[in-house]
Every structure is written in structure tokens, then in C-alpha cells.
């Protein structure tokens, strides 16, 4: 039973008929906690089988969990939808102020249905929902300006989230993202395109209600315990000091840093683009998601001169993390940090997934290098490693959808390689462009088998490093470990605690204690069982939409480029997939 709480209220918004209603879904929240667990059920309910992901029938689901607004680091919102990029389950997580705003506006989940006939943005203020005509905001060439306008027009400064799309979402580029508070993203799998298909420019949610606990004294004690761990212990240091960019040198030294479309696994210029160097030369400030003391969001100060006027400059704060440094950096052979920041800023302006965008440009570069395409396809651009100007031009042409080639690039590397060739080096897992870890078979298996396809989703790269680099481990054992960890992560993402804080929240007994304070009863054993159940519920959706283990393939390049564990064997991957099918479909 949830104690005097609003977590089980679901706000349904129909953007076609401009109406909304609130339904209590205690049934779902009692059984699946919140976040991923609840969103999966709402997706199974709301998304008809076999639909076109860009049709009005595709629902957008946002869900948060009971600990949000009560304990620190419970700061993520889970978005679920059918992915226009892969046709499979779309799940993407973002922080910013989204989770706190949804929870304190009095909701556990929001379901957006239908498609508007004209551009709209939606403003949710507590129990009221306002539909605003966004025609004038549509077609602006940066995602930043409409956000600024919404910010100035709407109430709730300091207590709100503004989730919005940019030109990529409007154009329904299949890897368009949704931006939260300028520097956080529902990055992967094309939620931005689904917004675009609904003519939904953005959604603003604000609220600041109180959340009751059953034992105030114990609550304050437990809060302090978790807060102190987050602020003073070693477990969060990696994230607040150099942040995830610390991985550039770590992976480079290991030989697992995908470089120049994974032709290499280390980069001659790694030091220049490392977290250490960027922090020293460009780090301008750090910011935090709401209710997280860690402040892992690193913003670089990018100062650029205008070429047409002397002593005329602009200065921009650019958010950077390991993933864009890989995708828009090493994958494109970019040799200096400033150029990567310029590319990140471009991708940010268009609001597209930085990881997919970089991997797609890397594929196109290799295609051009191998003369499989020419300037006819690229509309005059000559892509080459380290040619930032060419990449800036190509991103603009993708947004413009300039010709058939750029239209194909707007649908991902698998789609483009089916038309133009180069499948052997089209780097994707289940149509989603690869992330920055070529550490061994476990990382690739993790992405293939993940119920989420996001870059943070599994234990693969850590299994490569902690186990496979040390000794031989059977593919079956690796799959068992991946699936077991997936179960744990379903719980974390149902509570919506940030995965960066998993070292603090991994203890199921602690979670059980925290939930009890909210009047929610789960034993540690219940939670473990539930994690497995949520994982299998997600596969229910995936299998329904055509996912099959037999179709899972890795590009030849993955096998040809040595990883820190040695060359990855096809036989190893095949055995793992056969075993995975057996245990997951069971």
C-alpha cells in the first residue's frame, strides 16, 4: 500500500483532441514499483502490435518512481515508446529536472497519445494541462531558442522541466533526441522523432508538492547516510571529478577505444582529447540534476572567433561526456578537443543522438575513403578523418535531408548500408549504432541482449575487464551474468535511481528499507524476483514486435579488430546467443 502518495496517478494527454485525464493505476505501481516496471506495462497496454512507430498510435510514456523527491540520486525519468530507429522496444532515460518535476507535480507516469494537426507544446501545472499553439516555434534552426521562449512564457522557474525537440525531431530523423534542461537528453532510439510525429514541440511540467513518509526520524537518518555516501565516499568520485571522460585514457590504454570506425582501438591523439586535458583547458563549470549532489554534468567553455570580424568572439557552454568524445571524437579521428566541442554543439543544436550521429558519419567517411560513394552522394562534401568542417556540413545536410543519401543517413547506419553497401563496417547492435566500448565479447553481447539498447545498460564492458581479460569464461556463463545484472538494473530503473549511483543502491535490503518508509512493502527477495519479471515483460514486447535472437548480427569489423580480450570469435558470440535465446524465451 502506498501511504498517502500520488505516485500511482497517471496523467494521460491526448494531443489530437487536446484533452487530458488522470487515472489511478495503483494496480501497476503496487506490482511494478514505477519507472521501467510500470512503463513497460503501459507500453504493452497502449502500443498496438505492429504499428509504424511514427504513426499517431505510438504512445510516449514517461515514468518515475516512489523514491523520487524523497531520496537523493533518484533523479531519472524513464521514457518508453516503440523506437522509430530500430522498430523494437524504445527505452531511454534522462535526468535534468524531469523526474523531480513529474513526481512533485503529483504523477508517477505520463502517457502522451495521438498526434496533433498543428505544432503544440504542452504545459502541465499540477492538475492542470494547457495546450499551446507552437506553430511559431516550429522550424527554428536551433533547439535552444524555442526552449528559451517556453522558459520565459511559462510559470514554475526552479521547479520545472522543459523537455523539447529540435530540428532533428521535427524532421523525424530516426535518432532525434529529446533534450531536458539544455544538457541532458533522452538520447537514444529516437524519442525526438516520435515527438515530431505528434507535432509535439515540447512539454513543460512543474510542481512542488510534499511527499509523506511513515517515520520522519528514520527518514532523516537514512537520507543523511545516502547523502554522505554520495558526497564523501569514493564511489561517486569518478563521476564528479573528471566525469565519464576519464574513460578516454582508460580505454585507450586498454586498447578498447573504438577509433576511426573501429579500424583501431587506440588513438594517437587520445591525450589531447582526454577528460584530463579537456578539464584543464576547457572545463567551465559543473551542474547537477535536481536532487543529486554529485554534479556530474561537465560543461566546457568553448570560445570561437568570428572569421569575418576581428576581436569578435562568441562563448558557449558545451556539455561533454565520454560517449560524445568517442562518437564525435575518436570515431571521426578528430585530433583536437575544441573541434569535438564544435561538433557536440552542432548535434546539440539539432537535438540528435550524439552517439548515432558520430557512428553514422564514421561509416560515411569509410565509405568515401573506400570509394564506395563519391561526392555525388555526399553533395560535394569530402568526408575525411579529422575534417571537422566536412562533418559540420554533413550534419546540416542530414537535417536538410538534402538528397537520398542524406535521407538514408537520417535513418541510421544499418538502413544506409542496406542501400549503399558497407555492411561489414556498419557498426550497430540491433540497428542502434554502437557505443564506445570494444572491450571484448561481453560488451557486444550486452548490447545485443540488452532489454534497453542504451549505452549504460549492461555489465558487459566490466565483465570483459574483470573476467575475460583474466581467464577463459564460457559464453553461457557470461550470458548468465549479463542476464542476472539486467534483473538488478530493472529494479534500479524502476526506482529510477541513477545508474551512476548503483554502488550505493545495489543493496536490495537497503532498497526494501527505503520503500518501507514510503509504505511500500517489498522484501529483498521480492525485488530480485521482480527484476527478472520486468526483464521478461520487456522481452514480451520485443518478441511481439519482431525481435529474434536469430537476426542478431555483429558487423565483420567487430571480429576483425582486436579487443583487449583478443579477437572476438564468431563461435563464441553464436554460442552465447543460442544460450541466451534458451534462457530468455523460457
Amino acid at each position, binding site marked *: 500500500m502506498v501511504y498517502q502518495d500520488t505516485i500511482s496517478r497517471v496523467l494521460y494527454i491526448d494531443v489530437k483532441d487536446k484533452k487530458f485525464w488522470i487515472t489511478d493505476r495503483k494496480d501497476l505501481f503496487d506490482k511494478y514499483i514505477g519507472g521501467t516496471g510500470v512503463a513497460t506495462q503501459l507500453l504493452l497496454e497502449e502500443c498496438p502490435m505492429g504499428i509504424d512507430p511514427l504513426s499517431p498510435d505510438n504512445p510516449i510514456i514517461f515514468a518515475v518512481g516512489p523514491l523520487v523527491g*524523497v531520496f537523493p540520486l533518484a533523479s531519472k525519468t524513464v521514457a518508453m515508446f516503440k523506437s522509430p530507429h530500430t522498430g523494437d522496444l524504445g527505452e531511454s532515460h534522462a535526468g535534468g529536472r524531469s523526474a*523531480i518535476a513529474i513526481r512533485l507535480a503529483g504523477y508517477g507516469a505520463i502517457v502522451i497519445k495521438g498526434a496533433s494537426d498543428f505544432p503544440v507544446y504542452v504545459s502541465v501545472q499540477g492538475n492542470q494541462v494547457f495546450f499551446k499553439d507552437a506553430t511559431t516555434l516550429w522550424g527554428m534552426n536551433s533547439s535552444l531558442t524555442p526552449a528559451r521562449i517556453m522558459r520565459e512564457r511559462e510559470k514554475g522557474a*526552479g521547479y520545472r522541466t522543459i523537455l523539447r525537440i529540435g530540428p532533428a525531431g521535427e524532421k523525424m530523423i530516426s535518432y532525434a533526441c529529446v533534450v531536458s534542461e539544455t544538457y541532458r537528453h533522452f538520447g537514444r532510439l529516437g524519442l525526438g522523432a516520435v515527438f515530431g510525429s505528434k507535432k509535439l514541440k515540447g512539454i513543460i511540467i512543474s510542481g512542488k508538492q510534499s511527499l509523506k513518509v511513515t517515520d520522519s526520524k528514520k527518514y532523516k537518518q537514512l537520507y543523511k547516510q545516502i547523502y554522505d555516501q554520495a558526497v564523501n565516499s569514493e564511489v561517486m568520485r569518478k563521476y564528479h571529478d573528471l566525469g565519464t571522460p576519464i574513460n578516454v585514457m582508460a580505454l585507450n590504454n586498454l586498447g578498447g577505444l573504438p577509433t576511426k570506425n573501429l579500424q583501431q582501438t587506440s588513438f594517437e591523439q587520445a591525450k589531447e582529447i582526454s577528460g584530463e586535458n579537456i578539464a584543464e583547458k576547457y572545463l567551465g563549470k559543473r551542474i547537477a540534476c535536481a536532487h543529486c549532489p*554529485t*554534479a556530474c554534468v561537465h560543461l566546457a567553455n568553448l570560445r570561437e572567433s568570428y572569421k569575418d570580424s576581428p576581436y569578435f568572439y562568441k562563448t558557449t557552454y558545451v556539455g561533454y561526456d565520454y560517449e560524445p568524445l568517442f562518437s564525435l571524437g575518436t570515431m571521426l579521428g578528430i585530433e583536437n578537443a575544441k573541434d569535438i566541442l564544435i561538433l557536440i554543439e552542432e548535434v546539440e543544436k539539432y537535438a540528435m543522438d550524439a552517439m548515432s550521429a558520430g557512428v553514422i558519419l564514421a561509416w560515411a567517411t569509410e565509405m568515401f575513403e573506400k570509394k564506395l560513394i563519391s561526392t555525388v552522394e555526399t553533395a560535394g562534401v569530402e568526408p575525411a578523418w579529422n575534417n571537422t568542417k566536412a562533418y559540420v556540413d554533413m550534419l546540416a545536410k542530414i537535417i536538410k535531408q538534402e538528397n537520398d543519401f542524406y535521407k538514408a543517413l537520417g535513418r541510421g547506419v544499418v538502413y544506409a548500408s542496406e542501400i549503399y553497401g558497407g555492411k561489414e563496417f556498419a557498426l550497430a547492435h540491433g540497428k542502434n549504432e554502437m557505443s564506445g566500448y570494444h572491450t571484448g565479447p561481453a560488451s557486444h553481447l550486452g548490447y545485443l541482449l540488452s532489454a534497453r539498447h542504451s549505452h549504460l545498460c549492461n555489465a558487459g564492458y566490466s565483465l570483459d575487464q574483470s573476467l575475460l581479460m583474466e581467464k577463459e569464461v564460457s559464453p553461457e556463463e557470461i550470458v548468465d551474468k549479463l542476464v542476472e545484472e539486467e534483473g538488478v538494473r530493472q529494479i534500479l530503473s524502476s526506482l529510477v535511481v541513477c545508474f551512476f549511483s548503483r554502488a550505493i543502491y545495489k543493496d536490495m535490503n537497503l532498497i526494501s528499507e527505503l520503500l518501507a518508509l514510503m509504505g511500500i512493502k517489498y522484501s529483498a527477495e521480492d525485488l530480485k524476483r521482480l527484476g527478472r519479471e520486468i526483464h521478461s515483460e520487456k522481452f514480451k514486447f520485443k518478441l511481439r514486435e519482431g525481435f529474434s535472437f536469430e537476426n542478431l548480427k555483429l558487423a565483420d569489423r567487430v571480429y576483425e579488430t582486436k579487443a583487449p580480450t583478443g579477437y572476438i570469435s564468431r563461435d563464441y558470440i553464436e554460442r552465447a546467443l543460442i544460450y541466451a535465446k534458451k534462457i530468455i524465451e523460457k
Partner: protein
Amino acid sequence: MKKLSVIDNKRCTACQSCMFACSRRDGHGGLSNSCIGVKTAGGFEGDMTIVVCRACADPPCAKVCPTNALIPKSTGGVRLEKTKCIGCKLCQQTCVIDAVFWNKEENKPVICIQCGYCVGFCPHNVIKLVTK
């Protein structure tokens, strides 16, 4: 007398830990009972604004209260006598730095009593209790 002061707003990461701490004084989660606010000035690319009561020596909020629910303290600032408050919001409208916060659930103002509980939860030394 110690007063809550913003030492360096440029160190603020907008983590809102102070806001949650303030609301947690009454033993619960959420933000309805918080009387410290962090907001961006021009988005996250700008500096943060931290709104806290300055504990005025001659508090304008108390002067406009029609029921004398806000009682000036000798050390500056005010004390709220909840039972007298009719929720008219005049105090909120009068404070030019918006430091009178509003608890919608109670329909009463929330005004800082300079207790400093929030200071213990600021990870970046943005705020401090300073002897004035």
C-alpha cells in the same frame, strides 16, 4: 546573530539539496515546505540564483500583514504565527527578492528562520550561516 548568506552563487550546481533539506525539516520529502529556492538565470548556461530570506531588520513582509501573523524578531527577520495567517499573500507580493515562499498545501507562507539546516546539505559551500 547568525544569518543565512549566499557566499558564492557561481559555485552552485543547482542540485537542489538545500531545497530538499529545508523541506525535510518537518520530516517529509518533496518541496512544499521549502523556503530556499535555486533557479537558473537564463538557463543552465547562466549562473544560478539562490533565493533566501535576508532577515531584514525592519521586515517589509511584516509591515503589510493585515493580521499580524508575521512577527518581527529582534535579531531580524520574522516568525510566522500560523494560526493568525489568513493566506492573503500580501507578504509574498511585498518581498522584492521573492524570499517569501508559499506552501500551497497549507496555503500559508514559508519564511526562513535562519536555522541553517540547509547549509549542512550544500555539497559545494554556496551558502553559510554568517555572524552579522
